[in-house]
């Protein structure tokens, strides 16, 4: 019985976050806008690079820079809702296992992040990659990286955002904690994206090697985040 209750509670929290997001469209619009703004900034950054410069060389890095900062925007929002009216207390007062809250929030954040990523990636290619050679490897490989890295980002991000929502200067705080912790994941994600974009002999192997890193990071860090969550949310 306890098991099915947890599943009900998980669904309820996730559904609540989805309904709230569909109604306000707060996270997705702010994240999406942020992605568009980053592209403008990238245009400025690349303005003097000239036509001979192959944008594909820096594209993997650029998209992950956009995504990591975008994700922090969403992660911050996701706990401001809970904190605003003290709803988190009502939630904690109910007989729900703390890990259920972690996984529900994690799933919601992952979903929102993936939606914005999938929406902004075509725009990015449309704006920067027209007239260039296309992707060197099948496009689904990009999807694999997006999913793999987003799992790690939302998993660790959910734990950190739960903490930083209670700190002074929460947005800056999240960045200070989040970016260095994410270094190995981002490094591997950029490597894998690069292999997927450039293509050519050997890149498929490189891609999977980097994906193994991503997967390893996901497993270790999400498990640790899950283990620490109960302590962090209880104070």
């Amino acid at each position, binding site marked *: 019985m306890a098991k099915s209750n947890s599943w009900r509670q998980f669904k309820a929290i996730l559904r609540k976050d989805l309904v709230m997001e569909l109604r306000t469209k707060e996270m997705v619009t702010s994240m999406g806008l942020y992605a568009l703004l980053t592209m403008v900034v990238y245009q400025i950054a690349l303005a003097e690079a000239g036509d001979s410069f192959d944008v594909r060389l820096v594209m993997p890095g650029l998209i992950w820079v956009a995504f990591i900062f975008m994700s922090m925007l969403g992660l911050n929002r996701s706990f401001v809702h809970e904190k605003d009216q003290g709803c988190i207390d009502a939630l904690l007062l109910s007989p729900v296992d703390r890990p259920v809250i972690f996984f529900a929030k994690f799933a919601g954040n992952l979903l929102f992040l993936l939606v914005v990523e999938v929406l902004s990636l075509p725009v990015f290619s449309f704006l920067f990659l027209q007239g260039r050679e296309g992707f060197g490897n099948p496009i689904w490989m990009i999807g694999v990286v997006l999913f793999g890295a987003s799992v790690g980002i939302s998993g660790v991000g959910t734990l950190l955002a739960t903490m930083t929502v209670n700190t002074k200067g929460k947005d800056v705080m999240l960045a200070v904690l989040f970016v*260095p912790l994410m270094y190995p994941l981002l490094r591997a994600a950029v490597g894998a994206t690069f292999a997927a974009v450039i293509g050519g002999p050997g890149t498929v192997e490189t891609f999977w090697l980097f994906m193994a890193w991503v997967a390893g990071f996901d497993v*270790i860090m999400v498990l640790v985040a899950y283990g620490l969550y109960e302590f962090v949310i209880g104070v």
Partner: protein
Amino acid sequence: MKRNPLAEIMLGLGGLLTTAAFFMAFFWAPGTVYPDGRIDFAQKIFYFHVPVAEASFLVFIFTAYYGIKFLMTRKRIYDTKARIATEVTLFFVLLTMATGILWTRVEWGVWWLWEPRLTTYFILTLLVIAYFVLRNSVEDEEKRAVYASAFGILAFIDAPISFFITRWLNSIHPVVFAGGEGSGLETSMLITFIVAQVGMLMLGYAFYQLRLREEELTERLEALKIEIGD
């Protein structure tokens, strides 16, 4: 008043050993000779740069260890211990960075290079600094302790991951003790290094104990003030 004689002995001994290592480095251990016959004087940094770096890693273990202990018991002393361990880590990290940058300038001709070892150490530095930024931004004492412990544990697990991922992407940073042909040191160099390393670890222990004593005093003072205030 509880003094810690061991800490003071360690401090004296550590100071003695590191000073001895300093003289051994310059007057006893031979310099590395380049193939073209020039002498690599800059290599002398090795005797301090590496011990400080290793000490920083070792002390950081205690951040995570006491972090876990704190979360299990909720006793404030463990949080204090974790915080002091991180403080000593930060101190060693900054020394490692400073000496490392100087060495890089001599040996590679640039102050900084995004080279795997340097990159990961830079990440570690950021994580340690972030630990203190986090502490400063939490008002409530217990919350601060819980968050700092959680972040200390995460950072401790993250550091080796970043280390290995960059390592896998090939490093030009010298690896002295990798084993295999041509690795390792001449005996006199090895002894000098070991003396410096042991001395540095003793200093690390002494620093930690001294800071802990300072914290204990502060806490007693606080308790006394509360008592008198009644």
